[in-house]
């Protein structure tokens, strides 16, 4: 039997060894796929004018939905993706990414400047110069995340 594994790094080696011991072959060409819940490949498939682009999660500054479109912003580029925002949120590591409004998820270490609003809001300037807002709904989660 041949199996393709889609596991996070923590489980990858132990599961692989156990399956091999049981005589199961691990192959990237296998039709049977064993996927861990919350599996994160560390990449997001996006599109630009030249075609498909794979964006490493480490490159992402923030992800934003506008209407039916979802855009992935990196330091210099913006890409469109077919994935829904909630799906991307599930894929992104919780300790590195944070939802700050119904339409925006940011990477935690890309904030350059923060300005508090008078009515439970924060206005953020990111390291790439873009501005995003923390809305009232996510205000206390944001405060808790950063310990402010």
């Amino acid at each position, binding site marked *: 039997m041949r199996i393709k594994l889609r596991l996070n790094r923590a489980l990858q080696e132990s599961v692989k060894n156990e399956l091999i011991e049981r005589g199961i072959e691990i192959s990237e060409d296998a039709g049977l796929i064993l996927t861990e819940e919350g599996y994160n490949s560390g990449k997001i498939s996006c599109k630009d004018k030249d075609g498909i682009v794979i964006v490493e999660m480490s490159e992402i500054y923030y992800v934003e939905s506008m209407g039916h479109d979802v855009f992935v912003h990196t330091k210099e580029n913006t890409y469109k993706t077919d994935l829904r925002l909630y799906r991307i949120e599930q894929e992104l590591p919780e300790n590195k990414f944070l939802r700050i409004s119904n339409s925006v998820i940011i990477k935690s*270490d890309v*904030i*350059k*400047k*923060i*300005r*508090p*609003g*008078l*009515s*439970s809001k924060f206005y953020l300037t990111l390291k790439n110069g873009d501005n995003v807002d923390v809305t009232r709904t996510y205000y206390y989660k944001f*405060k808790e*995340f*950063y*310990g*402010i």
Partner: protein
Amino acid sequence: MFNVARIIILFVIIAAVLMFAYYLIYTHNINKKIISGQVSGRKMVDIPKMIMIAAIIVLMFLCALFAKEANRPQMKYSRNNYAVIDISDNDYKYASYAGSANLDDASFAKMYSKEKNPGYDKEIVDDGDFKFTIFKRSAEADSFHPDFLCFVDYNGKKTSDLSLSISGMFCEKADNKNSFGTGSGGGEIYDTMLFIGNLDEKSFFNISAWIIDKEGEALYSEAMEKAFEEDKGEFPKEEDFAVSSASADIFIN
């Protein structure tokens, strides 16, 4: 109320300045924390909570201020040093103040200058040992400034056997009759006295002052006894037995 408004404005300005200072400190603090990635440490109170706290403090202060103001008796004149101010009647038609020029107190006299008062015409009447420095309103009438002020200075002798009598009377222009007023007699001689009051078109204000000695007082008493015995309805005036007397009339056009 004017002072209350000034206190409120001052308090609100101070609160706004403190709030702005807190905003800057808070902004600096959270920027520092986020950039350094330090999630532990003491959290500052956030801006919306601080605004709420500040609003509660301001409201409590305003409530206390208004409660205090509402309980204060309605005085038309300063309460300071009221023990030496005579008020002629409940309508506060005029007030007089008597005291030493050297006395460092808070009184009506402090509000006005004997030299010059904007909105008033000055007139000086020298009469014997007394000098009347009269200020008559020249500006339009309002509720806060009296129609006239009169400083009465005594420049004569001051010995233990002399005493001062002084009166302030509202009189009808038509017949010179006194309508009402107050006076005091046989008292200590003051350097300076001040009369403050309002007048209508039909009246004028008369200030009479005289210094009488023991002999004059005795003669006046005898004359009064005699007048009672004769029962003619005519009585002597004390100032006729005085060693020095003076009088001034104040008219407002």
